[in-house]
């Protein structure tokens, strides 16, 4: 089977079969990752570059470790400290990396569509590590992998996603991907953070946090992106945490033992109280491990496709 496209730009471009293949491959990769000897040779003799125009801890490090565990030559460049700071255009930067016989470019960019823009110009495969408010496909894949691993399937599962929907690329990728796997996704956030027409992505817009999380199999909090908050979309953190946070009371409305998820980084006490972050149902820390496994799977499958052609 394998992946159809050269690049991984988003969940929009993946079929349900491709998503399942990534998740099943990630199961194997997780075994490798937790086996003690993490070294494989799947990317031996290959090169993987991470190109990050925005800050990142989890995504960048997990991609880097994933590629190194699999034996590739890897390096990273960021906007500061590269020629980007001298004003080089995105396309010139991407072509420059491409011309160093790079196999895979993993890019995070503040502009939606930036990876879609460069991908057709490059020989290398482009992996979207988050583009503006559009998509964050590997985050959604690791979220889906976590549910798949814990609950056996996404088919018919009820998933709640609460928080800053407007700015969230995580919610877009998850809503699109989870729907493809047959889950029912409900979303909720302040109206000032709810983009027009989001229901047309196939998710239900709930009336309040309680309505959103009720009887759910998994509840995901989203980070309030305070750095994107250049316009006041809510009056205060105190008010947000009172009316929009996933509190222990709210979590009780979900199915017993429902998974509590968060893509990180978390603003403790804003979207989640620390008590919820650390509760028994929380899989937030395990999501991080799964992130490495899923990214190993993505790199493996993209490279397999490159090797075929």
């Amino acid at each position, binding site marked *: 089977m394998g992946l159809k496209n050269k690049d991984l730009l988003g969940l929009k471009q993946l079929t349900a079969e491709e998503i399942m293949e990534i998740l099943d491959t990630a199961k194997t990769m997780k075994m490798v990752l937790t086996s003690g000897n993490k070294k494989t040779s799947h990317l031996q003799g290959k090169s993987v570059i991470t190109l990050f125009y925005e800050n990142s801890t989890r995504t960048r490090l997990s991609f880097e470790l994933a590629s190194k565990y699999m034996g590739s030559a890897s390096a990273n460049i960021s906007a500061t400290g590269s020629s980007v700071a001298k004003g080089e255009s995105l396309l010139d930067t991407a072509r420059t990396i491409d011309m160093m016989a790079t196999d895979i470019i993993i890019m995070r960019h503040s502009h939606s*569509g930036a990876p*879609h*823009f460069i991908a057709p110009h490059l020989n290398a495969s482009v992996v979207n590590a988050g*583009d*503006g408010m559009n998509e964050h496909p590997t985050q959604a894949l690791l979220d889906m992998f976590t549910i798949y691993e814990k609950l056996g399937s996404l088919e018919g599962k009820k998933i709640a996603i609460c928080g800053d929907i407007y700015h969230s690329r995580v919610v877009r990728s998850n809503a699109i991907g989870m729907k493809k796997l047959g889950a029912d996704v409900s979303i909720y956030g302040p109206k000032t953070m709810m*983009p*027009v*027409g989001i229901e047309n992505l196939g998710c239900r817009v709930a009336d309040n946090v309680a309505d959103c999380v009720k009887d759910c199999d998994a509840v995901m909090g989203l980070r309030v992106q305070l750095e994107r908050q250049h316009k006041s979309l809510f009056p205060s953190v105190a008010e947000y945490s009172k009316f929009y946070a996933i509190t222990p009371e709210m979590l009780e409305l979900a199915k017993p033992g429902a998974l509590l998820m968060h893509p990180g980084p978390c603003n403790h006490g804003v979207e989640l109280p620390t008590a919820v972050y650390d509760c028994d149902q929380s899989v937030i820390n395990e999501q991080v491990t799964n992130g490495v496994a899923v990214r190993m799977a993505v790199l493996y499958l993209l490279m397999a496709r490159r090797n075929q052609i």
Partner: protein
Amino acid sequence: MKIVLENAKLYNGKKEDLFIEDGVFANAFDKKDADKTYDLSGKTIFPGLVDMHCHLREPGYEYRETILTGTMSAAKGGYTSVCPMPNTNPVCDNAAVVNGILKKAKEAGYARVYPIGACSKDLDGKLLAEIGLMKEAGIVAVSDDGKPIATAELLRKVMEYSSDFDIPVLNHCEEKTISDGCMNEGTVSTCLGLRGIPTAAEDIMIARDIIMAEYLDIPIHICHVSTKGGVRMVREAKARGVKVTCETCPHYFTLTDDCCETYDSNFKMHPPLRTKEHLEAVIEGIKDGTIDAIATDHAPHHVDEKCVEFQIANNGIVGFETAFALGYTYLVKPGHITIDRLVELMCFNPSKILKLGRGGLEVGDDADLAVFDLENEFVFDKNKMLTKGRNTPYDGFKLYGETYLTIMGGKVTYEKLC
């Protein structure tokens, strides 16, 4: 110079040969005396088109377009009169810049150029520009195009002051405080993760402008209407007798916001492409006379300004060389409007709104005309354009209405070779 155009039919169906002498339409003379005779069998003659809204980029942005290349492009589109907006560098907010533009236009000689002056000095929305002195120099209207007249205070002053000089005011209607986006706000922008510009932003300012025009009883012209609400409000205002006119552009009746799905900045313009519902309302407004004119908003940009991330790409597309064919193919061919109505929209009405006195085909009138091939389909090729810009969304479109010949003041300004 004597020219004879024979074997063509006029747009209104009449079949007659046209004679041109000394730059004007003349009485029939002996064809043997003609310096040049065109056999226009199978072609259709129109009055030269008038574009009331374009950007020629000179002075200041000659790397995008010059008055020479811009008017050559206009001629290739069948235009003989064009009205460039004032957002040049320096801004066209004083008589010296107007004079400079007119001098270059005369040297170029490919189209009549009627500059539009700025409403406010440096387009900054604060102090009135020298509208009277610019009128003496040759402007035909004022606009802060690209920058909406932000406050009701300035709008009132501009309308009142301009009316002293019988100068129309053209406004790009957009409430900027809710326009922090790069495409239409809706399902598509949400799906693409792009910030949207709501139709309400356009509607709010159109409402304000209509209210002001009604209150002052002074005309206002709304630039490039793209929304259902805008069309509706203009229709209602006209019915009440408010002195409001408006234009739209070919992209608002041919393309919708889902064209942005590939993040191709050739679909990025201001106002943004809307949904089908709004496109249909624009066509309805064109049909029932609410919309007075079709303008191009010809906006050439350099490839370096377009071949970038969607959000940071410049707004706008080139339009001279596709406007007529799009109007004919998308409005006349499907039967929305007659060919006579298309001529009103693309020639008579803009000429009337700006008082240019263009569009005559009678003996004694300036010989401004365009000849189109309405019979044969052609494939539009962006690399064959005469504009410097390559920013068109219509590359590869199959259209009817290719330009065959353009004559301005008796001078051939465009001729299709074979």
